[in-house]
């Protein structure tokens, strides 16, 4: 346990000084960035103090203040419901047909909270400590402490809404343990926790729709941010059914639009998950922080062929009983695995990491699988898979016990692959699952653009370089139910702001930009579909900016992405019209933004010549091949300012602003799982 400095003022580490400069020529160095909302004092008092310092908005004034929220996942729906209940006028926008479809719904495992119901030594400080350590000391300590502090309230709130969490026979809430920690603090609803939490938030949101405080815009996609007179004041959105371009103005804009894992084409994200909302904001001045931090989950169902459209995650709880192996001999790759005798199998995780075995953290398990496949020992289509074998567990516990524990996962696997995992070992392969990077925000969750707030996976703030299991749901709901409603009032206390109208140059410019861009995409009239470009971009990102990154690879990737982007804007084919439901047009706009993001991710990864959390640079490893962090050089948040360049043109040089990560409550340590 780290040393707690009671005054909260003595820094336990020094600011880093970067010596390496791998990305030289690809970026310009800007001013240091300081979070001027960051509270000081003892860590346990910071949030309490901040809530008190932030001004209040009188209930009578709230209905004069309008809030736009983009996205209705956990972070967006919870914020919409809470701000609506408080009496603000809220408009929510989402690309799906109902708020209930947002991709938070697919989260399986659970949600962490420091309730200490198990009396196993959990506490707010321990949840905070585990999260900072799990994030490999690349997150902001004040934010993470606050997350841990409000975690218990989330559970109370959800239970009051009727979320059917698992319970024990006494009728009280049950908990389980989850990757990388030694306490049981995860609340769950079988393998569908995200679904149940989102339905809870969705119902609360719909209640506000009925009450008239929230207006819901379904099948609407934000295509531009409106920044007028230095403040974010609205969005330009497209009605995806009629194609109409609409301007929506407000006093404040909240982006809760999720993560950008689909930049890799194949990921566990939903088909529609995209970066457009945050990328358009980035183009309008919002800094993008740590874009290269990507989480790759080790237990996904492998690709079955070129037709693959997305990947499906299986809970990593499978690693509790399954044993991971590959054939020792490459010649055995195509053999029926049941015919490969014990002595010809390499249980490589158990061999290399005897202490943790199959339960090493996500990044290590993922990378190890990649090495085996790169070495030609991978199994299944394309040699991109390793076995996850339950034969021992079935022999030890019996088939019924295995079925009781993992039955639903086994059924899902069988439905997708057509193979029976009770008889044939499962095949698994890592897949992109979550991004820790996102728009830069201060302690109040406000970006550097005044009036633009960012919550949930769309911001960068809480998970550092790696997110712990069951923490994404916690962050989404913490931001939406408890943090944002308490920080946004400090900004709104100065409102309502001057009325804007459609004639304001900033509004007209944003609108014209959207119309122009859609027109250009339709007019290219080339040969290739947006999907084919997306796939090609995904291959580049996965190959060079995936589990293991090198200077050479990243440099090459930047070159390839730039060439691909040029080809896209000259050879794309989008059929149909702008004034109708046109899924190809929607896709084309998203892919164009993914390409620009991909380039920035590679530049960020190139600059960060260290291995930390989900980011592994081959040049920075220990003699044993383990990740090697460089706190002396890189204990900072990399916040990137857009370098300019019109849509379809090459991007200008991005500007790097560094925010030092200074710890006062926890000492930085290197992790080891051997």
């Amino acid at each position, binding site marked *: 346990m780290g040393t707690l400095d009671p005054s909260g003022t003595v820094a336990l580490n020094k600011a880093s000084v970067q010596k390496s400069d791998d990305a030289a020529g690809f970026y310009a160095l800007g001013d240091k960035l300081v979070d001027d909302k960051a509270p000081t004092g003892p860590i346990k008092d910071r949030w309490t103090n901040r809530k008190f310092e932030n001004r209040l908005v009188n209930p009578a004034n709230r209905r004069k203040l309008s809030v736009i929220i983009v996205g209705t996942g956990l972070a967006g729906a*919870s914020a919409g419901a*809470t701000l609506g209940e408080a009496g603000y006028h809220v408009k929510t926008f989402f690309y*799906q*047909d*109902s*708020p*209930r*479809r*947002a*991709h938070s719904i*697919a989260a399986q495992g659970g949600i962490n909270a420091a309730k200490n119901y198990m009396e196993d030594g959990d506490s707010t400080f321990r949840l905070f400590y585990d999260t900072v350590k799990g994030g490999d000391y690349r997150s902001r300590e004040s934010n993470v402490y606050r997350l841990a502090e409000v975690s218990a*309230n989330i*559970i*109370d*709130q959800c*239970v*009051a*809404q*009727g979320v059917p969490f*698992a*319970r*024990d026979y*006494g*009728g009280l*809430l049950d908990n389980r343990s989850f990757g990388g920690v030694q306490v049981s603090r995860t609340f769950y*609803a079988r393998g*569908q926790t995200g679904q*149940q939490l989102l*339905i809870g938030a*969705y*119902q609360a949101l*719909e*209640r506000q*729709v*009925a009450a008239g405080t929230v207006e819901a815009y*379904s099948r609407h996609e934000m295509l531009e941010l409106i920044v007028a007179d230095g403040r974010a004041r609205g969005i330009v959105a497209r009605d995806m*059914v009629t194609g109409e371009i609409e301007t929506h103005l407000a006093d404040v804009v909240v982006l809760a639009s999720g993560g950008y894992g689909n930049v890799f084409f194949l990921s566990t994200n*939903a*088909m*529609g998950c995209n970066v457009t909302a945050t990328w358009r904001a980035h183009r309008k001045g919002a800094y993008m922080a740590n874009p290269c931090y990507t989480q790759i989950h080790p237990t996904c169902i492998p690709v*079955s*062929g070129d*037709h693959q*459209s*997305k990947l*499906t*995650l299986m809970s990593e709880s499978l690693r509790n009983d399954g044993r991971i192996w590959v054939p020792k001999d490459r010649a055995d790759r195509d053999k029926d695995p049941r015919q490969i005798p014990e002595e010809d199998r390499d249980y490589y995780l158990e061999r290399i990491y005897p202490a943790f075995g199959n339960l090493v953290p996500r990044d290590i398990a993922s990378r190890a699988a990649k090495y085996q496949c790169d070495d030609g020992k991978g199994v299944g289509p394309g040699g991109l898979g390793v076995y996850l074998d339950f034969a021992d567990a079935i022999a030890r516990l019996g088939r019924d016990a295995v079925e009781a524990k993992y039955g639903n996962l086994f059924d*899902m696997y069988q*439905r*997708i692959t*057509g193979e029976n995992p009770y008889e044939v070992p499962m095949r698994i392969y890592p897949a992109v699952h979550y991004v820790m990077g996102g728009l830069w925000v201060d302690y109040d969750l406000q970006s550097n653009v005044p009036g633009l707030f960012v919550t949930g996976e769309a911001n960068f703030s809480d998970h550092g370089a790696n997110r712990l299991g069951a923490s994404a749901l916690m962050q989404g709901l913490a931001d939406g139910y408890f943090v944002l409603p308490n920080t946004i009032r400090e900004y709104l206390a100065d409102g309502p702001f001057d009325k804007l109208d459609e004639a304001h140059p900033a509004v007209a410019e944003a609108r014209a930009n959207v119309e122009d861009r859609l027109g250009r995409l339709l007019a290219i009239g080339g*040969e290739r*579909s947006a*999907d084919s470009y997306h796939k090609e971009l995904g291959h580049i990102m996965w190959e060079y900016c995936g589990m293991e990154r090198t200077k050479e690879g990243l440099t090459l990737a930047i070159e390839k992405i730039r060439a691909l982007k040029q080809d896209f804007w000259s050879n794309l084919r989008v*059929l*149909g019209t702008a004034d*109708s*439901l046109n*899924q*190809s047009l929607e896709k084309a706009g998203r892919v164009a933004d993914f390409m620009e993001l991909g380039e920035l991710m590679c530049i960020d990864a190139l600059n960060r010549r260290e291995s930390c959390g989900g980011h592994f640079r081959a040049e920075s490893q220990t003699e044993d091949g383990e990740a090697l962090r460089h706190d002396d050089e890189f204990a900072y948040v990399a916040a990137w300012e857009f370098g300019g360049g019109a849509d379809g043109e090459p991007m200008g040089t991005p500007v790097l602003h560094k925010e030092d990560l200074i710890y006062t409550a926890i000492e930085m340590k290197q992790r080891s799982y051997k």
Partner: protein
Amino acid sequence: MKLTLKIWRQPDSAAKGAMHTYQLNDVSPDMSFLEMLDVLNEDLNAKGEEPIAFDSDCREGICGMCGLMINGQAHGPEVTTTCQLHMRSFKDGDVITIEPWRADAFPVLKDLCVDRGAFDRIIQQGGFISANTGSAPEANNLPVNKADADRAFNVATCIGCGACVAACPNGSASLFMAAKITHLGLLPQGQPERETRVVNMVAQHDHEGFGGCTNIGECAAACPKEIPLDVISQLNKDLRTAIKRGH
């Protein structure tokens, strides 16, 4: 395998639609049904023909966004969502008919996409527990007996896809509505609003143009989450009680 696809195409909600026939010659049994349509759309785009619009999002069977009538069955021949249906459920040479959900309350927007906004409006009329953020008591102050909690969870797994409506000859959304009424009615937190909830949700359901339930059971048979038919009995019971008590 080779397949013949007969697909409903309709430019927009006002236009008249028609079935169109397409051929696919190289379908892998490992493709999901929607990946098969992705492949068809790539073909169409290459030929200069506008791709077919259909909804999907998570493609993991949980978001409820996808939903097609496949050979007359909601979500096709397996008990799962359209996105989790794989082509190994079909044979070489099959002719597959693909239509959107058919119900008055779900107007077609384009091709295979429909508007299910009516479901949200039913939820708005009481499919929630009123608990403003911050007002919640400590979670373990309110024990819930495990059998009720487990059943509440089982019926709360409804994904709002609309297969029940599409499968019902009456176009009724009773199963969808009853799943929510049962979920919230099983929990102590759900009691204060139990009677107004059922009355208001049923009124909205009828107002939206969904038909009545006549106990046919197609809904439960088509439900990818296997919500049981008896939730509708619970709905009727709650409605009777509420009306008797003057709601």
